[in-house]
């Protein structure tokens, strides 16, 4: 009987050998596959339920982690949700993260390399890991003002920067949304909210598709600043050059024609200097410049202003890349030179261009982050202003500034004028097909001789009158608010 007892024992040991094998398989060999399984929420939840660092504007958190429920010890909360949604993005269990929540993931979750020692000490002290907090360059008053200047129900974006440092002072767009709806721990609500929000046209839910960094829009006449810089840079033109200014220009190889803006004073002259052409925003002089210089020169100047570059990496947001195509026929080149047809720019791109002109031709790296602080408030990074590139020469930028000042003081951007302050500006009205609706632009800076602030406004899908009301006069309000600080 003892022999069969030993056999029975061996059978039991054999079963246990299988168990050891199965455990090893699950926990070591097949573990990676199981960890990567889409049904496995552990990795997401590990991050999701952490005490993430706050995103701070002027000392007050706009996104912070507060005590959650028993399934998740922390809940992300946005204090002025709609106002900052385009910056913070959302932090969701189902949809992941966007905006700063996504791009600053390592810092906010406390897993960046700079926080390595903090992590070690947290392990030994048995504390929950805590993330770093991020303070932004935004000015809450200007942010609020800019947000309120876009009427509800209107699609539009405003970017306010300091041209000397590249710091973003305000960046807003409408329609906006409440990221709390998507950050909720109630999965059903989260999903239905996301689906609802996604139906709203132009909502800044996806920063690389809409909003200041993502909306790719026809820039219209503000693109003439690129033509001007390219012309002066070529040496073929100077400030006194006389440009052809026919009322309408036949497009080469096409039956269509490019007319001048009918509402202004362009029709009064058949030739124009740069000052007049910019003040009245005539189309034909710039189309002829483009045809004269060729698309390479225009494309090169556009690139120097930032077209083709992803500013999202620098701002820590998702973004779209502005385009000036390089395979244009002459008709397309003429139309693109006045900001129509194939040229597409984000509001941020136009703001970057204007900032470069304001800063003596030197484009500063755009920056949203003032300081990143460890949980013990130690500063772990504090970005310094950084030169991105020379967009144009100091002399050329000074010349363009002078003309832009005339555009405000004598020309069609008069709404932006401020008594006692020299304001430089340029408007744009990009037609949207034959709908009669336009994208209405203003971009400019003040004071012209010592730029403190650059403002870019775009209102999408409006008629000419509404567009004019919502751009230059609003820019004036923002200039005043910043300069009076």
């Amino acid at each position, binding site marked *: 009987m003892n022999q069969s007892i030993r056999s029975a024992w061996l059978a039991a040991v054999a079963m246990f050998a299988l*168990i050891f094998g199965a455990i090893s398989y699950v926990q070591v060999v097949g573990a990676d*596959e199981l960890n990567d399984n889409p049904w*496995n929420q552990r990795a997401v939840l590990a991050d999701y339920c952490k005490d993430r660092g706050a995103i701070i504007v002027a000392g007050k958190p706009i996104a912070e982690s507060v005590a959650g429920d028993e*399934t998740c010890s922390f809940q992300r909360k946005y204090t002025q949700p709609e106002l900052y949604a385009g910056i913070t993005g959302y932090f969701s269990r189902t949809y992941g993260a966007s905006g700063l929540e996504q791009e600053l993931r390592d810092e906010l979750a406390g897993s960046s390399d700079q926080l390595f020692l903090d992590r070690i000490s947290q392990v030994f002290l048995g504390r929950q890991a805590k993330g770093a907090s991020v303070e932004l360059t935004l000015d809450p008053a200007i942010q609020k003002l800019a947000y309120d200047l876009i009427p509800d129900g209107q699609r539009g974006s405003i970017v306010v920067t300091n041209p000397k440092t590249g710091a973003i002072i305000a960046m807003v767009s409408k329609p906006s949304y409440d990221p709390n709806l998507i950050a909720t721990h109630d999965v059903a609500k989260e999903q239905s909210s996301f689906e609802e929000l996604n139906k709203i046209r132009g909502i800044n839910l996806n920063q690389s598709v809409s909003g200041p960094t993502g909306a790719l829009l026809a820039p219209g006449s503000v693109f003439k600043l690129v033509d001007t810089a390219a012309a002066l840079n070529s040496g073929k033109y100077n400030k006194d050059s006389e440009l052809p200014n026919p009322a309408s220009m036949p497009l080469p190889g096409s039956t269509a024609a490019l007319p001048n803006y009918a509402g202004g004073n362009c029709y009064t002259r058949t030739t124009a200097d740069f000052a007049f052409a910019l003040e009245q925003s005539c189309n034909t002089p710039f189309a002829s410049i483009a045809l004269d210089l060729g698309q390479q020169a225009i494309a090169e100047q556009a690139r120097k202003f930032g077209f083709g570059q992803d500013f999202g990496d620098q701002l820590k947001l998702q973004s779209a890349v502005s385009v000036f195509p390089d395979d244009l026929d002459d008709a397309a080149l003429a139309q693109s030179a006045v900001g129509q047809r194939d040229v597409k720019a984000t509001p941020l791109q136009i703001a970057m261009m204007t900032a470069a002109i304001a800063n003596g031709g030197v484009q500063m790296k755009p920056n949203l982050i003032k300081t990143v602080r460890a949980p013990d408030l130690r500063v772990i990074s504090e970005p310094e202003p950084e030169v991105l590139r020379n967009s144009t020469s100091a002399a050329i930028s000074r010349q363009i500034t002078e003309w832009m000042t005339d555009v405000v003081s004598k020309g069609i951007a008069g709404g932006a004028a401020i008594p006692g302050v020299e304001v430089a500006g340029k408007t744009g009205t990009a037609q949207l097909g034959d709908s009669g609706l336009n994208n209405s632009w203003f971009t400019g800076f003040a004071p012209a001789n010592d730029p403190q602030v650059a403002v870019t406004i775009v209102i999408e899908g409006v008629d000419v009158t509404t567009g004019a009301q919502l751009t230059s006069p609003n820019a004036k309000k923002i200039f005043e608010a910043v300069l009076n600080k």
Partner: protein
Amino acid sequence: MIQVDTAPKPRRNVELALLVLALAVGIGASAMVDLNSETPFDSDFWFQSSLLAVAAFAFHVVLRLRAKYADPVILPIVVALNGLGLALIHRMDGPGDDTGNNQLRWTLIAVAVAITAIWFLKDHRILRRFTFISLAASAILLILPLVPGISAGEVLGASVWIRIGPMTFQPGEIAKITLAIFFAGYLSSNRDLILLAGRKIGPLQFPRFKDMGPMITAWLVSIGVLVFQRDLGSSVLFFGLFIVMIYVATSRISWVVIGLALILGGGFVASRIFAHVGFRLDSWWNAFTPEVYDRFPGGSRQIVQGLFGMADGGLVGTGLGQGRPDLVPFANSDMIIALIGEELGLIGLFAVVLLYLLLFTRGFRAALGTRDAFGKLLACGLSFAIALQCFVVIGGVTRLIPLTGLTTPFLAAGGSSLLANWIIVGLLLMISHTARSPIDTTPMTDTPSEAVKQP
């Protein structure tokens, strides 16, 4: 029968030292869990720890007095497992949950019953007198959950619970012991008869039908459990117990072959006839298919989430109290092994499985050492039952085999299971005491076998 030499030393001091170690494991685990809670080291912690220690030392003292040659390793292993289980169950209690304290209550009751059994029974051989009473008791225990009035109805698809006042109980757990006693008693009396009588058909020798009657009854019992109580796990366990004991009694491998064929055949037929068995098989084989994962009830979500937890634990685990058992359904009972894998890692889970390996090995050692056939069969059956139960549970959790609703001995939340397993430990300790005693003072109680009367 071969005699195995046993060390004639009591080794109670070794047990005491190991017991201190075991308590350190259990209480240490509690302390780590407590550190992560909102109120570390509150009265609950001290209450739990001291009661566990008192129970363990009381058991130790009783062994010194009544079974001083008992195996010194068994009790510390069981205390360590029970203590770890208490800590883990307490850790998973949400606000207002009382599972941890309930488990502690049952631990104390179970220890008290096991101590009482050792104190009054003194010698396991007395149980042999109750061979047929045990069969009757098994039948009654298994039928109880189906009796209207005390049945707790169908809970989670199985009817294995009874309700007496506020308490619920799973009589099937105790039936495991009474069935083992019956098998041991019956086989030790009739093994020669079963071996010698009967016809030989081909290479296999079949016993006479009248000798096999009770065995067939026992087999029918396990089938009945499957059909009427819908409890696949217990059915497999009873059947495994039955095969091993008859194999040990007769040393005929043919029994194992027949038994395994019956299990596989029965399992196949059952999976075709009963939806719940079919679901179990499907959830095992197609666990990662979306329809199976989302099916409710009978889906694979529980298994898959348990696997995710274990994978997350990896080699060293997330640390006690740092895992996410809230994502795994029934983490504190059926899936406690997955939680150990998650929080203590592969290393911790291996340690726990090794404890079980050591435990059943000591049980088999007692079976080898004891001199009476009844004791050998009983110790062997009970030890194998522990091993099989672990295999079924851990194999199910790791998707080695289909998951069935068995409890992890000593670890999982559940009073009936604790009580039954502590009684098993008491019996194993008594058998090991007889096995290791220097001189067997009582005469062999084996009555002359009926084989003598054989022609």
